């Protein structure tokens, strides 16, 4: 990680028509995003994720505070925002493709930058290969499906090799395997070109898989906890493992020796859910929590998202076969287990103490 690409201080944005009591749609005290970082914005609808991305793309002007890009405040100079936009590209949730062909679209930003035709052709081919659309140059965009359009828009952004790639739910229109492959593309692009990636997502698994850091937003403000599977508190250690208390007498154990205040997350796919009284119930070990299934949602990848409420709230991504085998159903009493090694520390402040979830 390098120097901050973005630095935000006391930043606020207000959409017109907000009530006087809470005039701002987004308020952030302080945030630095280093060069090359992948930052995920997670939060419910209306949390301010898209607004933050629009601010980072210099498409909205902050109502208050300072937003620095590469050490400068683009809004302070007359053409500063337009110049900054050349380095920060936003891919919107429902991307718009200009009329014409795939090639016209992918070359659009390159032509604006007046690159030589040979380089435009090379970058266009490279970007289309990255999104698995080689040879699609001459297809009219009117013939594309929503998922293909999303990939063309992603290629159009990747072709620019921007300093900052801002993505609003980038894999929303893609099926699960393709979504995973596109995540790899984003990660590789970040590494290869030193691109800073900021993405918003409702998909907590995606955020924890892809991002080096997760920013939780709720009601236009940064919050410490925004989701199931995210816990925070002062850590204690016995030298081999560490833990935080997530409830009276309830320890969430993780690998390593950690002291100070930590925020940690557990990938939903790393969590096992078994019937509490079933034959497959594991014996007592670290990270075993009782609860009842409060919700089950089917996903596209032959798995279901299972929400368990009990000693703590967890959300697990469980293969359908396992659900069938274990007799997992709504209201069933279950045991949630996961390996300490699967607990990921996403925030650490040494020497501090605070409340836990």
């Amino acid at each position, binding site marked *: 990680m390098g120097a901050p690409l973005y630095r935000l201080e006391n930043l606020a944005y207000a959409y017109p028509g907000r009530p006087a009591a809470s005039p701002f749609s987004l308020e952030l005290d302080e945030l630095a995003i280093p060069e090359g970082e992948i930052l995920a914005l997670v939060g419910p609808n209306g949390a301010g994720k898209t607004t933050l991305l629009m601010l980072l*793309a210099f*498409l909205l002007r902050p109502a208050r505070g300072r937003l620095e890009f590469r050490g400068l405040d683009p809004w302070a100079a007359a053409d500063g925002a*337009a110049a900054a*936009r*050349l380095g*920060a*590209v*936003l891919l*919107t949730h*429902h*991307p*718009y493709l*200009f*009329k*014409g*062909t795939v090639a016209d679209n992918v070359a*659009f*930003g390159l032509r*604006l*930058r007046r690159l030589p035709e040979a380089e435009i052709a090379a970058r266009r081919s490279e970007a289309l290969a990255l999104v698995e659309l080689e040879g699609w140059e001459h297809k*009219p*965009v*009117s*013939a594309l499906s929503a998922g293909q359009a999303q990939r063309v828009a992603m290629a*159009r*952004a990747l072709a*620019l090799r921007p300093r900052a790639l801002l993505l609003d739910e980038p894999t929303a229109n893609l099926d699960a395997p393709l979504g995973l492959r596109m995540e790899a593309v984003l990660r590789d692009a970040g590494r290869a070109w030193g691109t800073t990636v900021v993405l918003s997502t409702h998909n907590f698994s995606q955020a924890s898989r892809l991002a080096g850091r997760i920013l939780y937003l709720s009601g236009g403000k940064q919050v410490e906890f925004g989701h199931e599977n995210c816990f925070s508190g002062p850590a204690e250690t016995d030298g081999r493992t560490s833990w935080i208390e997530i409830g009276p007498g309830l320890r969430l154990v993780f690998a390593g020796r950690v002291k100070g205040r930590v925020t940690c997350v557990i990938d939903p796919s790393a969590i096992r859910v078994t019937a509490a009284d079933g034959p497959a119930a594991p014996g007592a070990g670290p990270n075993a929590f009782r609860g009842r299934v409060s919700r089950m949602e089917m996903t596209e990848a032959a798995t279901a998202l299972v929400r368990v409420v009990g000693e703590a709230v967890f959300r697990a991504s469980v293969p359908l076969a396992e659900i069938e085998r274990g007799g997992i159903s709504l209201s069933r009493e279950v045991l949630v287990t996961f390996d300490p090694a699967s607990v990921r520390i996403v925030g650490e402040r040494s020497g501090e103490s605070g409340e836990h979830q």
Partner: protein
Amino acid sequence: MIARELALAVWISLKTSGLAALVASALAVPAALFLAGRDFRGKKLILVVNQTWMAAPTVVIGLLFYSLLSRSGPLGGLGLLYTQTAMTVGQVFLVLPLIVGFSYTALRQVDRRARLTALTLGASRRQAGWIVLREARFPLLVAVLAGFARAISEVGIAMMLGGNIRNATRNITTSIALETAKGEFRNGVILGVLLLVVTLGINVLVQTGLRGRDEEP
């Protein structure tokens, strides 16, 4: 009506109305782009006034400009009355609200994301404006052609400001009026059909020339 006279009337129609449509478009499209891209106090009033202006009878516009351009009028010194220039000026005033209205609707229908996408891919605000126009090029073309059709088919302004002077300001519509007044209804109908054929030809030419690769006509 001899062939040369007829050809000249067609040429005068095409010239004055074509020029009127182009000048009006040059004023109307930027105005529509401005109106479509911004919300401000008084915008609704502007749109209502524009809508009302569209319904103005050609004779009223002709009369208005006649009073301005006649010898005793404030612009009488310019000596424009009974010239093709006067006809063009009157027709610009006639078709301007029509092109503003059609262009405004066309530009409002362009996805707002088009401008946003252009900006985030590095376009300046001016370039983003051009891109919005490009995205709406076919409905905008329809707006310009509608303006041209309105101008070439009107008779009130051409008659009052042009004076229907043979070989100077007589166009197709004033020729039709003259032939009808003379009781030469057959000639009037032939000229009417000719007017439609000329307009059809212009429409086909322009739309074929500008049709995009993946566009509906």
